């Protein structure tokens, strides 16, 4: 009879939570359609295409270099969009400062003389970048430019040398083509990964994990804090319900909800977006289940330590922010120092992203210990929440 009554109380909480969610059309839109819309927008909107940098090449009049644009198109490649070749360095630099162009390349004044004198000439590459990522990209392009210019020069010299040698009777001098002399090696990349997803497909599992964590944390935390800050918790204190029954009820209700949304989102990922699913579906479902459970535990903890709805929302957003930065979603985990790297596994989604990435796109994972981390996080978060909520429900 005691168990039956306890079950009645738990089911009452489960039913109440599910009805409340269903009764809010806005919540349904944001909970179910929201993740779908985010995924769809991400898939449709992100191309991975990087705009070529608008470039002006300055050829000093005394350099003797050609001034037509066709001569430099090969050097510019796909990363640079050559918009003008000019002798006026000051005008080009002014446009750079006004941010109407991205790069100014100033050719050396006496390249031939410097070469004959056994000295290196400098090609000056100027950019106007505040963003460190853009700056790094400019450095990369400068190196590519330097390499290509050098290759062209060597190729031209080799060609001239071969002509000279042939005219001198050294017929074997033409055995090696000038382009091979200029670039004797080339890399041939072979990817042994079991799948080669596109950028959108690659980010799909991470977006799924992030959405699930944020949804689970926010839903359960707001549900509890609303009851704590209204007279409803007063009723709980007087009634026979205890903290365990309340927590179980909430976990089951929001677990069902998040599980349903996760299933729909996975179908969307694997179907229309074409994300590979190479791993065992049961194992993937298990990881998603653990991720939801740990996230719900985190949400419970946030509600237990908050004293207002506003604080709950702020803490939930802080968790989201920390997740975006530290989970490996935006920045690779191995770019962080060791002490921070150890701490970021406390965020459930850090483990969720790695495991889902591996299981979906590789079929297996070398980080199976993170399954254990998710389970421990779930137990610790829920245990702490239980202690705090029990205290809140106890007579004061």
């Amino acid at each position, binding site marked *: 009879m*005691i168990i*039956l*009554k306890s079950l*009645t*109380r738990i*089911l*009452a909480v489960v*039913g*109440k939570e599910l*009805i*409340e969610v269903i*009764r*809010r059309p806005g919540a349904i839109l944001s909970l179910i359609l929201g993740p779908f819309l985010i995924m769809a927008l991400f898939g449709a909107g992100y191309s991975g295409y990087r705009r070529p940098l608008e470039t002006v090449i300055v050829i000093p009049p005394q350099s003797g270099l050609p001034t037509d644009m066709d001569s430099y198109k090969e050097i510019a490649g796909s990363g640079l969009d050559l918009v003008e070749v000019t002798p006026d360095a000051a005008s080009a630099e002014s446009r750079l400062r006004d941010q109407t162009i991205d790069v100014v390349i100033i050719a050396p004044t006496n390249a031939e003389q410097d070469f004959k004198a056994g000295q290196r000439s400098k090609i000056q590459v100027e950019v106007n970048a505040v963003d460190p990522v853009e700056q790094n990209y400019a450095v990369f392009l400068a190196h590519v430019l330097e390499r290509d210019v050098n290759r062209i020069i060597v190729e031209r010299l080799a060609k001239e040398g071969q002509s000279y040698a042939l005219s001198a009777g050294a017929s074997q001098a033409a055995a090696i083509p000038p382009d091979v002399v200029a670039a004797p090696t080339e890399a041939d990349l072979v990817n042994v990964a079991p799948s080669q997803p596109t950028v959108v497909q690659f980010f799909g599992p991470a977006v799924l994990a992030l959405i699930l964590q944020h949804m689970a944390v926010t839903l359960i935390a707001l549900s509890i804090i609303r009851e*704590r*800050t*209204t*007279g*409803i*918790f*007063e*009723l*709980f*204190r*007087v*009634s*026979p*319900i205890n903290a365990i029954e309340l927590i179980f009820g909430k976990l089951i209700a929001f677990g069902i909800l998040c599980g349903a949304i996760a299933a729909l989102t996975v179908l969307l990922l694997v179907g229309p977006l074409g994300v590979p699913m190479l791993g065992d579906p049961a194992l993937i479902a298990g990881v998603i289940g653990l991720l939801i459970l740990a996230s719900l535990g985190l949400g419970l903890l946030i509600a237990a330590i908050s004293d207002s709805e506003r604080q709950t929302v702020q803490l939930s957003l802080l968790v989201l922010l920390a997740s975006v930065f530290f989970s490996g979603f935006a920045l690779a985990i191995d770019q962080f120092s060791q002490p921070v790297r150890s701490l970021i596994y406390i965020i459930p989604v850090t483990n969720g992203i790695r495991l889902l990435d591996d299981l979906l796109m590789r079929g297996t994972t070398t980080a199976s210990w993170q399954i254990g981390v998710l389970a421990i996080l779930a137990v610790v978060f829920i245990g702490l929440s239980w202690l705090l909520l029990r205290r*809140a429900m106890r*007579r*004061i």
Partner: protein
Amino acid sequence: MTDERQRDGTSGADNAAGGTVGAGLRPTDAERVPGPIADARPADQPSGDVIVSMRNVSRAFDNRTVVRDVNLTVTAGTILGVIGPSGAGKTTTIRMLTGALAPTSGEVEVLGQRPTSFSRRTRERIGYMPQLFALYPDLTAGENVDFVASLFGLLLWRRRRRVQQVLKLVQLWDARKTRAGRLSGGMQRRLELACALVHGPTLLILDEPTAGIDPLLRVTVWEELHRLRDAGKTLLVTTQYVHEAEECDQVALIAHGRLIALAPPAELCRSATGGDVIEVETTDMFDGSNLESLPGVLAIRQVEARRLRVTVDHAATKLPAVVDAIGVAGGDVASAREVRLTFDEVFAELVARAGEEDDPAADVAADIEPGTAA
């Protein structure tokens, strides 16, 4: 100008403050009308059993004493009205009885247990209606009652029957499929009452159950509370409507955090005045002090120049004597009648009297009663 001279300074209410609330005023069997809830279950507790007991109970928040030294005993089958001005300490007292608050000092016992360590079985015997709206606005009226019934462990087959019964009782059956958030304030209050009643508790603790309800429905609610009392339930009801004291078997008047009176309503009236009150109107100005020596006169109050109130030990026998005495003293009586003070006047009198005896610092403390939110 008001002038009061009372010969007997003692008050029945003062003497009664701190005592036992019995079932002495319960109606006879013939007067009892079975209702939809009252007839559903037999009496839970034999009349005379102590249901609630508070001994020297005080509660302080941050060194501010909100309730001080309350002594109270409530026996089964009684309606105790807890009445007092806003911020008097009523809700704090109620919350100590539900176990939501522990007393700072003193002992509280409800249904034989200390509220801070209620067993689940005891909790199932208590119905509670908090002062604040404590329902889920997105759930319908029926779902809210069903949820609360489940919290108290009612299993499915009994739950359905009880939900229907209590919703019909509070006249919300037709609105059972309406979301609680869309009900009017009065309907929400009735819905909360239904939630408090749904599991058939032995002890009902209702914090302002009639607040925001129209007068006609208030009558219905009180009729039902009487039926519950007659079925052996014990009810603790706080109310801001002073005249509702008449509906209670006993009234506990709380002011400035102190229990200043505990008595049946009729006794409280006498306590406030010290006896029966005769109001005399004269054709010309008359000095009431001329009546002081009259036997049976306890106090005289000059309400207006030509109107005075005379407190006597027994109005029916003393009224002619008072009229004669005024005539002898040269006055001309235009009218004379026994008056019954309204409960508003009675409580104003008792609260004012208690306030005079109080420490001013304590008044401030009692007014700053913390909210009921968790």
